[in-house]
């Protein structure tokens, strides 16, 4: 059993990054491995956008990640600095900046790069899904 830490750098739709990473994560858990954390960085933070409406016939990537994370106890961490710069705010950040109620999909958590460093230290394997 191998423990993985995954980094996702691409925005959904603009790149395949998040979709490849999701398929990888699904395959890994089906094979009995563990995904301890997925860290969304650069434009990957857009994967956590609860307001994104997918094209007709497609499911929201945010919802699909959230569902997998809940079923498999995976931490979905969104880099707070990258997110806030791109207008992705949780309720605390939205309140702090007086920008409504926030738009982060439930199941994702905003946090710092320290969470990624920690994941690299604890996981057996680190895989980046580039944009």
């Amino acid at each position, binding site marked *: 059993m191998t423990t993985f830490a995954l980094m996702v750098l691409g925005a959904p739709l603009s790149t395949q990054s998040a979709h490849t990473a999701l398929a990888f994560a699904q395959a890994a858990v089906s094979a009995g491995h563990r995904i301890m954390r997925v860290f969304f960085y650069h434009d990957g933070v857009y994967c956590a956008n609860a307001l994104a409406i997918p094209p007709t016939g497609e499911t929201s990537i945010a919802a699909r990640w959230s569902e997998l994370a809940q079923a498999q106890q995976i931490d979905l961490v969104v880099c707070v600095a990258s997110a806030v710069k791109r207008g992705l705010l949780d309720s605390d950040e939205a309140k702090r900046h007086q920008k409504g109620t926030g738009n982060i999909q439930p199941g994702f958590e905003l946090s710092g790069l320290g969470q990624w*460093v920690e994941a690299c230290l604890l996981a057996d394997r680190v895989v980046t899904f580039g944009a």
Partner: protein
Amino acid sequence: MIKKSFLIVCRRAPYGESYAREALDVALACAAFDQPVAMLFLGDGVLQLSAAQHGAAIGQKSHATQLSALPLYDIETLYVDAQALQARQLDSTDLVLPVQVLAAAEISALFATHDIVLGF
């Protein structure tokens, strides 16, 4: 505490994309966790170190100035691809920080000798 050696590989030029800044933020985060960090500049990444840049001309902070803070965080091992420098008409005297200029075989060895290799 667990320690792993990190190699941050920078392949993108500054300003045109945000990867240069994001690579630096990851390097600093690793250093803040007291992990040994080295940085490798390949391809257009070597342009990040150019001393001649002036980000203010496009309303941005100068990336070279931000990189020059690396030694304050004990990140002093910087590698640069010799061929990339030459192709972009730079040499080590044009750069803001002291670097080790490496040939391809030496760069290849770096990938094997670091525990975690992250690319931006």
